[in-house]
C-alpha cells in the first residue's frame, strides 16, 4: 500500500475526534477568553467589545479576592491532609498484611460514589442538633452553617473522598522501591522510622510530587461538594465559595456570562501554571525511573 493512501486512512480515522474536539472543546476554550472581553446584552444577542473592563471589575471586586482566597485555603488544607493520610495508609497496607483487597475496596468506595449523594449524607452527619458527628464527639458545633467551621466540613468531605485513590497510587509507588535497599538497611540495624525517613520517603518523591499536582488541580475546581454540602442559602457560603462556584453563580444565576468568563479564565491561568510545574519537574525526575 503506498503512503498516500495510508495518509487518507489516517485522516479518516482521526476525523471524528479531531472535528469533535475542535468544535466542542478547542473553540469553546478560545471563545471563553474572547467572552471575557465583551459585554453581552439580551442573552448574548448583542455583544460590545469592552476591552479589559471585566478584569478591572474583577480585580476591584472584594468578593473575587475572597473567593480566590477560599479556593487556595481549601487547597492548602485539602492537599496535605490527603497526602498524609494516603501515605500513612499506603505504608500500612504495604506491610504484607492479610485482607489487603478488602481494605482496598473499602477505602476506594467513596471514589465511585456520586459526589452529590455523598455531600447529602454528610449534611445529615454534620447536622447541629441531631447529627451523628456531634453526638459521637460530644461537641456542639454547627459544622456547615457556622462561618468558622464550614471550610473544615468541606475539607473533611474532600479528604474522605480522595484518600482511596491516592493511597493506591502511593502504594504502587511503594511497591516499586527495591526490597534489597530495606534488607541492606536492616543489616545496618536501621529501625522502622529511619527506614521510612531515609529510604521510603526519598524514593517516593516522584510519586508524591505527581499526586500533589493532581490533587492541587482537583482542589482548584471544587464545586459539587460546595453546591450540595453548603448550599446556596447558607450564611457560611461566602466563607467557602470557590472560583468555580462564583463562576457558576455569575454566569448561570445572575446571567453575567462575561464576568463569569473572566472568573473562569483566572482559574485557567492557575491550572496552566500547575500543569507547567508538573511538566518542568517531571523532566527532572525521569532519571529516577
Amino acid at each position: 500500500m503506498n503512503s498516500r493512501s495510508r495518509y487518507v486512512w489516517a485522516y479518516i480515522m482521526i476525523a471524528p475526534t479531531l472535528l469533535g474536539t475542535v468544535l466542542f472543546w478547542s473553540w469553546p476554550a478560545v471563545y471563553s477568553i474572547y467572552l471575557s472581553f465583551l459585554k453581552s446584552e439580551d442573552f448574548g444577542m448583542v455583544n460590545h467589545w469592552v476591552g479589559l473592563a471585566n478584569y478591572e471589575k474583577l480585580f476591584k471586586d472584594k468578593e473575587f479576592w475572597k473567593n480566590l482566597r477560599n479556593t487556595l485555603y481549601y487547597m492548602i488544607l485539602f492537599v496535605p491532609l490527603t497526602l498524609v493520610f494516603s501515605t500513612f495508609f499506603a505504608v500500612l497496607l504495604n506491610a504484607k498484611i492479610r485482607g489487603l483487597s478488602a481494605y482496598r475496596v473499602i477505602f476506594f468506595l467513596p471514589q465511585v460514589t456520586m459526589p452529590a449523594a455523598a455531600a447529602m449524607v454528610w449534611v445529615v452527619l454534620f447536622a447541629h442538633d441531631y447529627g451523628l458527628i456531634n453526638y459521637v464527639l460530644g461537641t456542639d458545633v454547627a459544622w456547615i452553617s457556622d462561618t468558622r467551621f464550614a471550610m473544615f466540613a468541606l475539607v473533611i468531605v474532600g479528604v474522605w473522598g480522595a484518600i482511596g485513590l491516592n493511597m493506591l497510587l502511593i502504594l504502587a509507588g511503594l511497591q516499586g522501591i527495591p526490597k534489597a535497599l530495606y534488607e541492606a538497611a536492616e543489616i545496618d540495624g536501621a529501625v522502622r522510622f529511619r527506614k521510612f525517613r531515609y529510604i521510603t520517603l526519598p524514593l517516593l518523591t516522584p510519586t508524591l510530587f505527581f499526586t500533589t499536582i493532581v490533587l492541587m488541580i482537583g482542589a482548584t475546581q471544587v464545586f459539587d461538594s460546595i453546591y450540595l454540602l453548603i448550599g446556596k442559602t447558607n450564611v457560611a457560603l461566602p466563607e467557602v465559595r470557590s472560583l468555580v462556584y462564583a463562576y457558576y453563580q455569575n454566569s448561570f444565576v445572575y446571567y453575567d456570562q462575561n464576568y463569569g468568563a473572566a472568573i473562569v479564565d483566572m482559574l485557567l491561568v492557575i491550572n496552566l501554571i500547575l500543569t507547567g510545574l508538573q511538566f518542568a519537574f517531571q523532566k527532572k525526575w525521569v532519571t529516577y525511573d
Partner: protein
Amino acid sequence: MENRRQAADRSYNWIIHVVLIAASIVMIIPFGWMILTSFKTVTEATQIPVKIFPSHPDFSSYAKAFEKTDFKHYYLNTAFTALMKTVFPVLFSSMAAYAFARIRFPGRTLLFFVIISVMMVPNPVFYTPQYLLMSKWGLVNSVTALWICALVSPFATFMLRQFFLGISKELEEAAILDGCNPFQTFRHIMLPLVKSALVAIVIIQLLWSWNELQWPLIINSSPDKLTLSSGLATLVSMFSTNYPILMAGALMAVIPMIVLFFIFQKKFIEGVAFSAHKG
C-alpha cells in the same frame, strides 16, 4: 534474637489491623448512615439524642422519592447519557489513537497537539461557550445536550495512543504485507491487543458520566431532563430536612455504580488509577 524480632513483627501487624479497621469504619459510616436514615421516619431521623437504628424499618421514603420527583427520568437520562459518553468516545478515540501512534502523515504532531491541548483546560472554562452552542442549536433542556459535547474524548485518545505505542510492530507489519489497509489492521490486529486499556476507558467514562453534576445542572432545568446528580439537587430543595427521603434518593443514585464496582473491583481500581495519570 530472631524470636524477639518475629514477636515484634506480629504485634506490629496486629496494630496495623486495629488502625486499618478503625479507619475502614470511618470510611463506611456515611454509607451506613445513608441506609439507616433512609429506613427511619422523619421524627426518628431528627430525634435528640440521636437514634442509630430505626425502631420499625420504614420503606416508604423510597416510594415517595420516586413518586414526588421524576426519578424514573433521572435514571433513564443518566443511563442513556453514560452509554453515549462511553460508546462513542471509545470508538472514535481508539481509531484516532491508532492513527496517531502508527501512521506517519503530514500534520500528525500538530493535529495531535490540537487534540491533547484541551486536556490542560479545566472543565468549567468550556461550559459557557458550550451552553451558547447548545442554545444556538435549540438543545438547551434536552437529553441530547447532556452528552453531545462528550462524543469525543481527547483524554481517551491520549491514553490509548500511549498503549498503541507500546505494542511491537511485527504483527502489524505481517498484516500490512498481507494487504490489509490501515483500518483493517487496526480493527483485527491492534484493537484486540489493547483490550485492557479499552476496559479501563469504558469504566472511567461510565463513572465520570454517571457522577457528573455541573454540566447537567447548567444545561437542563426541566424535571424530566435532569440526571441523578442534578435531580438530587432538586430533591434537596424540595425536601430540605426530610432526611429519609433525601437519603433514599441518594442511595438509589449511588447503588448502580457501587454494584458495578463490587462486581468489577479490580477493573474499577485499575481504571481509575490509570485515569489519574492524565496530567
